């Protein structure tokens, strides 16, 4: 019941004057200080004097006034929490969402059950769009029209890295052993010159992979053709490269005149 009296100061001078006039309460004419009017209002317009209609009208008006003033203070002071209160009754627009700070945007998204990553310059737009989508239920259209890009993915040749990976995988799969031994067979050709012990090892290792690779490559080339994997010419090219490398290694080793040591190698394998 004290609501009206307590919120008398929320009313405008004009309103206060009109109320006082309506209830035939005298107040100073001319430029009157609001405080004076408020005091008069409080003094004379108590709940006993005012009818229910009056009370209702005044409470609605004060509430509206309160809302307006709240929005005004929000715009001028940029008070974020008040803005959210004031806007809770209205549908958020694109403009409103863009006014939110990064933290608030994240908070709003979290309320809707969306876990967000960091909201930075590059991600903000997407999260704003997401929030609008959640709130309005409509999808926001993107500025670009989808274009069929000239992808020409069919013409892309396999990269050396990809070839290396697939070769290693295939060898490991077929041999059932460690792929490192085969790959290391060629670099070992340099190292064995320095250390006399390791000379015995690579000789056997290089000879067998060459033979095995021939058979395995021929087997796998047919299988890949069936499954539609690497083109045949690529496979043949890789085989040729491997053969050349193996030949060079063997040739280097033969030039050392130190290849008649089968004992150590047989024990090794």
């Amino acid at each position: 019941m004290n609501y009206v009296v307590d919120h008398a100061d929320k009313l405008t001078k004009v309103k206060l004057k009109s109320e006082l006039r309506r209830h035939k309460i005298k107040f100073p004419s001319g430029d009157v200080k609001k405080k004076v009017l408020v005091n008069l209002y409080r003094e004379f317009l108590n709940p006993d004097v005012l009818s229910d209609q009056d009370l209702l009208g005044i409470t609605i008006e004060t509430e509206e006034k309160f809302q307006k003033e709240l929005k005004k203070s929000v715009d001028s002071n940029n008070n974020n929490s008040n803005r959210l209160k004031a806007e809770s009754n209205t549908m958020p627009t694109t403009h409103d969402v863009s006014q939110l700070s990064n933290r608030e945007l994240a908070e709003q998204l979290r309320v809707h059950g969306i876990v967000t990553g960091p909201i930075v310059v590059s991600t903000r737009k997407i999260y704003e769009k997401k929030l609008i989508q959640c709130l309005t239920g409509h999808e926001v259209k993107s500025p670009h029209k989808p274009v069929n890009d000239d992808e020409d993915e069919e013409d892309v040749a396999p990269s050396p890295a990809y070839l290396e990976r697939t070769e290693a995988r295939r060898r490991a799969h077929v041999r059932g052993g460690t792929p490192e031994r085969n790959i290391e067979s060629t670099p070992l050709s340099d190292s064995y010159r320095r250390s006399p012990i390791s000379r015995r090892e690579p000789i056997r290792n290089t000879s067998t992979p060459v033979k095995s690779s021939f058979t395995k490559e021929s087997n796998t080339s047919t299988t890949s053709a069936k499954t539609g994997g690497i083109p045949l010419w690529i496979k043949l090219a890789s085989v040729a490269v491997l053969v050349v490398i193996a030949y060079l290694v063997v040739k280097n080793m033969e030039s050392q005149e130190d290849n008649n040591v089968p004992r150590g190698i047989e024990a090794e394998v």
Partner: protein
Amino acid sequence: MSSTSQKHKNFVAEPMGEKPVTELSGIGETYGKKLAAEGFDKAYTVLGQFLLLKKEEEMFKCWLKDTCGANSKQQNDCYTCLKEWCDSFL
């Protein structure tokens, strides 16, 4: 896998290093230019954006669509490519 293109296989076979954005599966010259105009000229910048969006499919595809106008197939190719790369190297 026959469902992924050779471009995809090439990209996920090794660390991306300084590869341009056009090396990404689903990104050709047209989209590459648009992305580069927005500052995403290298594949690693797009990776950065992918990671910022917490590797979420929907968000990344939405971003890609907004940034360069990629269609749904290209969006999917690019997302799958990056996801697989991350699974191997990240």
